[in-house]
């Protein structure tokens, strides 16, 4: 499964204490084109990010189903317990099969 890059902004601490609950904010560049098919307008097919999947140290910590009802350039905020030093991996799945990925390290002391 090829992973491409996508403009994204991830806000999370670089370090946390074991057991601390941290907040993770994700902003990703995507028009979230909802289908347009109305008289007098150029038809536009739906093309959205339909899934955001986040894993931490290999375990899934968030699975979000998105719809055309999510605002363009999707913003998502959620929390996770700092357990061990590891990589937080963000995967965005797009209509049509493309997968975009970003990774960020979390150091747990």
């Amino acid at each position, binding site marked *: 499964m090829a992973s491409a890059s996508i*403009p*994204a*902004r991830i*806000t999370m601490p670089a370090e946390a204490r074991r057991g601390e609950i941290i907040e993770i*904010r994700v*902003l*990703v*560049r995507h*028009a*979230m084109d909802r289908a347009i098919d109305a008289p007098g307008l150029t038809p536009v097919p739906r093309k959205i990010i339909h899934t955001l999947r986040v894993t931490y140290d290999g375990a899934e910590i968030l699975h979000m189903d998105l719809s055309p009802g999510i*605002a*363009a*350039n999707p*913003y998502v905020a959620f929390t996770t317990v700092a357990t061990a030093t590891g990589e937080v991996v963000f995967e965005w799945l797009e209509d049509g099969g493309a997968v975009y990925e970003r990774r960020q390290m979390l150091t747990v002391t």
Partner: protein
Amino acid sequence: MRRLVVLGLALAAAAIPAMAGEVRAPASLLSPDLRALQDDPSRHPGWLWVDGGEALWREAPRSGRPSCQGCHGPIDGMRGVAARYPAVASDGRLLNLETRIERCRTDNQQAPAFGYESEALLSLTAAIALRSRGLPVAVETEGAAAPHLAAGKRFYETRQGQLNLSCGQCHDENVGRRLRGDVISSGVGTGFPAYRLEWNTLGSLHRRLRACSLGVRATQLPYGAYDYVALELYLAARARGLPVESPGIRR
């Protein structure tokens, strides 16, 4: 009933007409939620373009000429630059930030122009303009700039379009009032390029001006048109002293 009360209060709060001559910072006309968003890089979509612009700043063109950084140093060195635009170039031409970047691109980097309103140009403009955020608008209006200021002022005061409205009729006489679900601003443009909710993307001031032209049913001028750049200079003169808000959040 409660719905009507909330709606009434919200509309009343927005309809605070400015006193004649008072030019209001656009942030003052945003709702508290949107103002908070404008100041939050973790949530503000415009920062996605800023990130892109900062990367582009370091990217050397295929021509073999240096990257922006190669000549100008780190992008933080651009502090205060956007606040001085539009400005007159040494050959007498009035340039705004976008056309200034393009000129550098073609003349100094010997690379093809990005294209007005392209993702690349929007990103670079946003990243450079960010370095003036919070600084007072400080355009030069004397000397070589004087005739351009006069041209911009003339454009601002001329009635245009099928609706036969001049800029001032909304942006001086009706600031704070609601129009088509939005609140009329002083039209200063200090938050551009801006992430406009209506566009669901970041756009330039010229894109906004073209929407204004459409709004009064006047001909939309092309991006980069002299009349719009001269108008930009006049708007910046009106905004003198107000803080740069780029990249802004707008409805």
